């Protein structure tokens, strides 16, 4: 299996939850060249998710089927071009989620920790600004679409200076 194919198999957009321990273990399973696995789990927070005051009782994640996968694959390919990586895994859920539920997983395997950390954070930052997902929160006042955060744009823009 070529490096390119491996990258693309590594992206999943699904309603189901995932097993974080399994995903991290799979990134180094059966190989002795992986020295570092950096990973990230994003979860639904109950408090002030979009910066306002209301408690969130649930949220629904809408996405653009087809484009979500393509955009995540593009982000991962970009990461492979920037760092020396041995494996990646990106899982993003959609549908109805409640506080404490996992939303997203990003795992990156590399020989050295610097590459693994940088690529993992890069993928998250780009995913936040480029992958077509939209959150709608259930609050006591009714449904509320989450506004995009400027902080996410500037987090993603940091990486552009590297070009």
């Amino acid at each position, binding site marked *: 299996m070529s490096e390119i194919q491996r990258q693309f198999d590594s992206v999943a957009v699904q309603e189901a939850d995932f097993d974080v321990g399994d995903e991290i273990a799979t990134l180094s399973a059966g190989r002795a060249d992986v020295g570092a696995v950096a990973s990230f789990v994003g979860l639904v927070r109950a408090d002030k998710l979009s910066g306002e005051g209301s408690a969130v009782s649930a949220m629904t994640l809408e996405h653009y089927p087809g*484009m979500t996968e393509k955009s995540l694959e593009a982000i991962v390919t970009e990461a492979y071009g920037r760092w020396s990586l041995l494996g990646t895994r990106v899982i993003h859920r959609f549908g109805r989620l409640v506080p404490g539920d996992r*939303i997203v997983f990003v795992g990156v395997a590399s020989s050295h920790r610097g590459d693994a950390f940088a690529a993992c954070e890069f993928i998250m930052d780009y995913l936040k600004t480029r992958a077509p997902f*939209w959150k709608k929160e259930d609050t006591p006042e009714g449904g509320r679409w*989450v506004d995009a955060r400027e902080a996410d744009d500037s987090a993603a823009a940091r990486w552009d200076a590297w070009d």
Partner: protein
Amino acid sequence: MSVKVLYFANLRETLGYSHETLTLPAGIATLGDLRAHLAHRGGVWEALGEGRNVRAAINQEMVGPDVAVADRDEIAFFPPVTGG
């Protein structure tokens, strides 16, 4: 020239459409032209007007307003993304 247009998230709710198939009148060459054409419908469609924070994709790739639209393209309009 016929294109498929998709709408997502609060834009989908505001417009009351998730998708439509459009036969484009002459003079619509770019994504920006198409957006202006749709906003010109008035009413709820002003949500696509200039100054509104709307992103767009052609064939599932996010692009800017100057990109050309081609026959059978899949075009999407949506608010800034909030995943992750």
